[in-house]
């Protein structure tokens, strides 16, 4: 039951909100009251496996739901992928958990493209370590490349596939890909490289349900699922009440501080309905642009590594090319799903699915439209990833053979576009200039100072690396600073 006034009202329960909340709980008194409003249902891991879905209808928990029930898109435009449910994207994510590249935070300063982030890699570094510890990330602490770190990873890296390991021996740009899956069975069950991590059969991947039970079960928190937050009511420039609908009934809950972490499509919709319109609000919705290629080598297996994807090649992740076109990441998948094993005798396993992922920048042509009618779904307009991303992806695809030079490369297949990278970002961007951004570096709304907006909606650009670890680390930092803790 959610009733009365709360010290903290948290909207959504994905990466942004739960890491923010976790940090707050360490600072709030024992008598504090926190309300968590979650639109989706609570679906335990076993139910997810049974339903083959990460989310279900809160009013009919036997009915699986998918993202397309929560937004509309224009015909012919790309789909968007996210999870509505207690745990948000922590349930469906694959657990690829790299840090962003230090240069990702200074795109305008370094390359004259996109926007600078209001924080730097070094600002975030201790919070990256804290988030990695909480999540339980497996990574290589000895070979970190440009991702300088002050603490070792909590879990050892997975063993790479044969192709990945052969490259690590000869190419300093080839690194282990950090993963939120348990490499040794220390925190959760050990990963068995099943390769369909959305529904991890072992529960080896970090989710809010297996990794943050202390947060979800904290006695100070009241959790209400099936609560669709529509808007905030403001008074004298402060967020006073959160308006939500549950089982067809509109209700409000009041709080001293509101944390909005309802994903990068719903966050701008809620702010817009609250009368907090801004030229940049909902504008620039972005995600990376990706393609798969199959690489066949004369020797070395591409499917014998210890987890779903084992390595990354960072040769195009940063550099002067970012003035002209996007940076790109290469991820070494450890699966045969896309192409099958090879036909040639003695080479059945010598196949690699290489994921090529280009960064994207915000474009004003891409935006979330919020209808006047509160019951209508937000409409996403996303005409294109933009020439910057497209050129970057093309350049990265052209460069694939160079990665494998001298390793007995036999064939690189035609690329197959990936419909969605499942990383919705950039709709409530953070920045130092209130005229061009929605929140500041502490994730506080520029105008409404008792409102924090969290999650990947605050990213000013969409770098090539996966975003969730950064969203978690940024939430930890912002929450600490809310309590003056640094």
């Amino acid at each position, binding site marked *: 039951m959610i009733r009365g006034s709360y010290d903290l009202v948290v909207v959504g329960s994905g990466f942004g909100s739960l890491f923010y909340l976790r940090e707050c709980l360490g600072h709030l008194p024992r008598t504090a009251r926190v309300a968590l409003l979650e639109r989706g249902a609570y679906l335990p891991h076993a139910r997810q496996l049974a339903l083959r879905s990460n989310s279900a209808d809160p009013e009919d928990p036997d009915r699986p739901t998918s993202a397309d029930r929560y937004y509309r898109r224009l015909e012919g435009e790309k789909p968007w992928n996210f999870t509505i449910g207690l745990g948000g994207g922590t349930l469906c994510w694959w657990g690829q958990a790299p840090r962003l590249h230090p240069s990702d935070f200074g795109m305008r300063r370094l390359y004259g493209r996109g926007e600078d982030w209001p924080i730097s890699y070094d600002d975030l570094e201790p919070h990256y370590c804290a988030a990695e510890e909480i999540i339980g990330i497996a990574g290589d602490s000895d070979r970190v490349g440009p991702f300088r770190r002050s603490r070792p990873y909590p879990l050892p890296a997975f*063993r790479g596939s044969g192709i990945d390991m052969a490259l690590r021996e000869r190419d300093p740009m080839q690194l282990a890909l950090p993963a939120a899956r348990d490499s040794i069975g220390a925190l959760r069950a050990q990963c068995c*490289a*099943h390769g369909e991590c959305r529904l991890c059969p072992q529960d080896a991947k970090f989710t809010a349900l297996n990794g943050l039970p202390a947060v979800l079960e904290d006695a100070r928190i009241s959790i209400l699922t099936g609560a669709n937050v529509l808007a905030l009511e403001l008074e004298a420039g402060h967020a006073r009440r959160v308006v939500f609908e549950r089982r067809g009934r509109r209700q409000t809950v009041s709080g001293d501080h509101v944390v909005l972490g309802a994903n990068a499509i719903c966050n701008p919709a809620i702010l817009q309905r609250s009368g907090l319109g801004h030229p940049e609000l909902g504008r620039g919705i972005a995600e990376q642009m990706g393609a798969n290629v199959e690489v066949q080598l004369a020797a070395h297996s591409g*499917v014998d590594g210890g987890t779903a994807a084992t390595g990354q090649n960072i040769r195009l992740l940063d550099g002067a090319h970012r003035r002209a076109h996007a940076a790109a990441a290469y991820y070494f998948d450890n699966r045969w799903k896309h192409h*099958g094993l090879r*036909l040639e*005798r003695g080479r059945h396993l010598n196949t690699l699915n290489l994921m090529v992922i280009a960064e994207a920048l915000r474009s004003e042509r891409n935006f979330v439209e919020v209808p006047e009618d509160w019951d209508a779904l937000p409409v996403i307009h996303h005409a294109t990833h933009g020439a910057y991303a497209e050129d970057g992806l093309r350049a990265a695809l052209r460069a694939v053979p160079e990665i494998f030079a001298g390793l007995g490369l036999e064939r690189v297949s035609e690329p197959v576009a990936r419909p969605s990278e499942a990383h919705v970002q950039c709709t409530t961007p953070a920045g130092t200039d209130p005229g061009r951004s929605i929140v500041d570096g502490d994730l506080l709304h520029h105008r409404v100072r008792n409102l924090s907006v969290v999650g990947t909606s605050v990213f000013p650009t969409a770098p090539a690396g996966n975003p969730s670890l950064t969203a978690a680390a940024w939430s930890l930092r912002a929450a600490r600073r809310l309590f003056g803790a640094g």
Partner: protein
Amino acid sequence: MGRTTRRSFLTNGIGLVAAAAAAGVAGRYALTDIEAILEAIVRHHVGDDALARGAAAAFARDYAPMTASNWKLRSAVASGLYLLPLFRGALPAGDLARIERYDRRVVTDFLLSSSYDGRESGDPIDYLALETAPLCNPFARLR
């Protein structure tokens, strides 16, 4: 012309099924054809010398009903008649790619269902039990 027609007839995948139906052939007969093709695909690509005796046939027996109930798979099997080198040379690239895709699927499913785990042992590869989507990656080296 006649040859092109026959080729597209088969590669469209309608050939085997439609011909069987037109001739009033029982479903069981068509299934047997599919089994023979599946066995041929496995033997051709994995190699008789690498296979335990009867492994490909046993796999094909279990696998065929799965294909038979799936129109798309079944049509791909029909086009697998082009395994015959005689036809293969004359095929357009698109058809070849389609056949290769299907062959890869069959060979993958066979290997996943067999004693083959990717490591060189020299033992013949035996069929164990049909397993097209194993719970864990059998080739993974976990540590």
